[in-house]
């Protein structure tokens, strides 16, 4: 076991960069040695957040609990497919949770998403920007989000943390759908600018 995984480690390291490295080290332990202690720390860290997002997107507490089981089982099974050089642990778990939600809550096939991930894993032709996304420590994306005007941050949160369709965001905020789309575009472009500065 890595020294970084001592049991006296807090569940969240206050230093964001060290925290992201810590999460990556846990994932690597799960992938390489099927280490349950490391997996439990990831479970405690992300399970309640996944549950919160599923509940916000309309799942009952029981269903959200089941979805957490689905998501974390997939994290265990597919741990070897996580590529630390290509992104933060939270990004990867976010995609696993999104796919589980499409499958269970929306009753749509998540296969197209899984196929794209297969292509991503196989493609080695990474742009400098993609490498920057991978190597940056996740806190940069969080900082970029914090810097967004509140109206843009709000639609990003609704789209990603509550999985709201764009049409529903428009209805909830009493905005034309075009305005929702343009706020999402602006938020996204700002993040891309930050990442390009880094590349």
């Amino acid at each position: 076991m890595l020294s970084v995984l001592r049991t006296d480690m807090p569940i969240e390291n206050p230093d964001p960069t060290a925290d992201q490295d810590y999460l990556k080290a846990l994932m690597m332990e799960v992938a390489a040695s099927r280490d349950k202690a490391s997996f439990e720390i990831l479970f405690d860290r992300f399970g309640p957040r996944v549950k919160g997002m599923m509940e916000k997107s309309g799942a009952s507490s029981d269903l959200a609990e089941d979805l957490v089981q689905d998501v974390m089982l997939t994290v265990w099974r597919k741990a070897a497919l996580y590529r630390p050089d290509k992104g933060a642990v939270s990004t990867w778990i976010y995609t696993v949770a999104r796919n589980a939600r499409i499958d269970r809550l929306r009753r749509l096939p998540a296969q197209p998403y899984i196929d794209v991930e297969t292509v991503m894993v196989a493609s080695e032709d990474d742009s400098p920007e993609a490498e920057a996304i991978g190597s940056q420590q996740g806190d940069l994306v969080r900082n970029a989000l914090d810097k967004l005007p509140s109206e843009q941050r709000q639609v990003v949160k609704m789209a990603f943390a509550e999985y709201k369709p764009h049409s529903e965001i428009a209805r909830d905020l009493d905005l034309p759908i075009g305005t929702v789309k343009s706020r999402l575009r602006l938020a996204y472009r700002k993040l891309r600018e930050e990442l390009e500065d880094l590349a």
Partner: protein
Amino acid sequence: MTVHHHLDDASIMRYASGDFDEAFAIIVASHIAMCDECRAAVRAAEAMGGAVMEAADSSPLAADAFDRLSRMLDMEPEKPLLTPEPTAGNVPLPLSRLIGRDLDQVPWRTIVPGMQRHRIDIASSTSSLYMLKIAPGRKMPEHGHGGTEMTLILEGSYSDVFGQFAAGDIADLDEHVEHQPVVDSDIDCICLVATERPTRFKGMVSRILQPLIGI
């Protein structure tokens, strides 16, 4: 593959947050599988999802949640992870699951001379997904859109007011757009099309044609 026409940023965000129905998820995934730039774009949008998740409100789990999962892990046989080969050739993996790897094996049906179609059966009720094979020099009827329409070129090319679209390019058009693509390659232009609602054709002849073409 050099791709010149990409997904709109709003579509990248929509894909990353899992908001597309089946027809659009398939066509968007197919383009992303063919386009390095849009793969990087999706990764950036997903990083946003990850950051939002890190900041999301927690909901406490049942006291035995980890034990429950832990028992399942103990019963799990350790299977090697199988990763399928990303499809070679011009049929991207998300599409090859539905039509196979060979465009010549698609069961085309002639709609009008020079235009063939193959409908792809999906469960979705709000959108439809189909393939078109259009002969060189043929014009599509000029049409506007009742909703979002996406067209992914798999082979050959066409041109319209937005420029030339060749293999890998996607036309990501919203409802306010009207266009009339003309096939300008010397081979048939084969494309995958997803439409949100029936496309509105302009003009009497096109309106009569619409039920026949069914797009």
